[in-house]
């Protein structure tokens, strides 16, 4: 069998397997990085399932491979081993058909575009112009509390403002799968609570599948249907916790006993990660 045939066969098999499922499925993914000194295993044999329309948080110690996992799902990193299947598509297909929205851990704004133009970017490239069902940029600006700063350039913004612009940018084209890497990390609690609420509202109304990296146990417990707890060195699944709090959730749910219990459990697991 020639190399070309092998590749074709592999692709065909993957597509066949993919067509059958309606979820985002990460199967036995391993990612290693070659450095000059050593080979680092960022993720080792990680498998997880993200049902369609679910809200999943990734929780784990710094360096456990959360960002790397999001990058594998979004086709920015090729896994050394294992496969990813997004509702029947490969990451490459999902990416090129604009299924994925990504809020990076760093805001990654384009310095030469002002706030509004940064938010509009997804509608201007990669076939974004044909997305008719997009959000209203001015609504989004209001949502993230940046009305009146449309014309500001990134270097004129505070750290939290930049992060909010990045959030608005990811929301503009209403992606089917939303990968968020600590999107609210640089925000004060009030703004964060507000955006948590808004995110839940958006999630419920659009049916987006959300994979959400956070360091806040409370945030994970409040937002998610399931929390995947990752352990580090190498990155692997420690435990998957399903959060059974009622939907739609109000901020007040955080004062409930169930919530406190869930959070305490997550904390206990994290402590051994």
């Amino acid at each position: 069998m020639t190399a070309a045939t092998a590749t074709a066969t592999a692709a065909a098999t993957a597509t066949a397997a993919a067509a059958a499922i309606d979820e985002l499925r990460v199967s036995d993914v391993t990612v290693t990085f070659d450095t000059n000194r050593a080979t680092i295993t960022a993720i080792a044999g990680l498998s997880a399932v993200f049902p369609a329309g679910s809200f999943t948080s990734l929780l784990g110690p710094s360096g456990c491979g959360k960002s790397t996992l999001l990058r594998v799902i979004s086709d920015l990193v090729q896994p050394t081993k294992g496969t990813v299947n997004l509702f029947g598509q490969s990451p490459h297909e999902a990416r090129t058909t604009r299924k994925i929205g990504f809020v990076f851990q760093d805001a990654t704004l384009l310095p030469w575009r002002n706030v509004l133009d940064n938010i509009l970017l997804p509608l201007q490239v990669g076939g974004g112009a044909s997305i008719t069902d997009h959000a209203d940029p001015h609504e989004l600006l209001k949502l993230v509390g940046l009305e009146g700063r449309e014309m500001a350039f990134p270097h004129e913004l505070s750290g939290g403002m930049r992060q909010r612009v990045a959030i608005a940018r990811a929301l503009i084209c209403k992606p089917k799968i939303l990968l968020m890497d600590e999107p609210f990390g640089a925000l004060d609690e009030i703004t964060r609570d507000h955006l948590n609420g808004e995110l839940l509202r958006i999630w419920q109304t659009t049916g987006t599948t959300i994979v959400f990296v956070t360091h806040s146990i409370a945030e994970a417990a409040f937002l998610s249907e399931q929390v995947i707890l990752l352990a580090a060195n190498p990155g692997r699944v420690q435990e998957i916790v399903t959060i059974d709090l009622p939907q739609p959730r109000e901020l007040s749910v955080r004062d409930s006993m169930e919530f406190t219990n869930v959070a305490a459990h997550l904390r206990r697991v994290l402590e051994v990660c």
Partner: protein
Amino acid sequence: MATISPVATRRPAGPAPSRKRRHGGHRFVPIAGIVVLVIVAQIVTTAFSIPVYIFPAPTDVFGALISNYPLVLTHMWPTIFEAVMGFLLGNSVAILLAVTFMYWRSAERMVMPMAIIAHTIPVVAIAPVLVIMMGSGYTSKIAVAALVCFFPTLVNMVKGLRSADRQSIELMQVLSASKTETLTNIRAYACLPFLFSALKIAAGSAFIGAIIAEWIGSQQGLGYLIIQTTYSYDTPLLYVVMLAASILSISLFSIVATAERLIVRWKPAEDS
């Protein structure tokens, strides 16, 4: 204010008269340098009574300028035309090639050696061939001016287009942006410092190229005047012509610098 400090990196608003004053003062610095140079040249040539046909004193050059400026002016226009056209052509081709390399990496490996060859060929050696191929009109001069602008811009552009921040590139990948979109939205901006550096280099090169090309087959232009003045040992006029060429170069350089200042507006000034 107690906090008088030289490290104001972002100068806040409000009255800052000292800054404006400083700026106004600096306006004369470039001229000051030249003035000092001219005075030194005058003193040296006078003190050692260096003959005018070896190195003319600034006063001799000035005298030659006064009596010949209509001539120099007449011959300036063809050179300006050739240099500016060559500047536009050479830089455009370099930019287009560098852009092509972004789409087709093998092209870079294939073309780069040839570009170096083109850069190494002494223009004077191939100028006659160019004249045969393109005649002794403007075309051959523009071609030579373009050729000397070409390589530095190509090298800088190739680097500049690849100097984009990797995170921005990944952002574009997630958005499934085409190469063209990444190019126009990211790389085009990232390469601007490299491009403007290259254009500043090309500003002078274009005039050199046009002048050298005029040596080979021309009846007009500053290059022709240089040959004529050299041949007739009119050293003061030769220096006037070189001065004219320098002033033209400096002008084109300044235009590029101004364009850069007008275009790259989003960056906070690094005032260190």
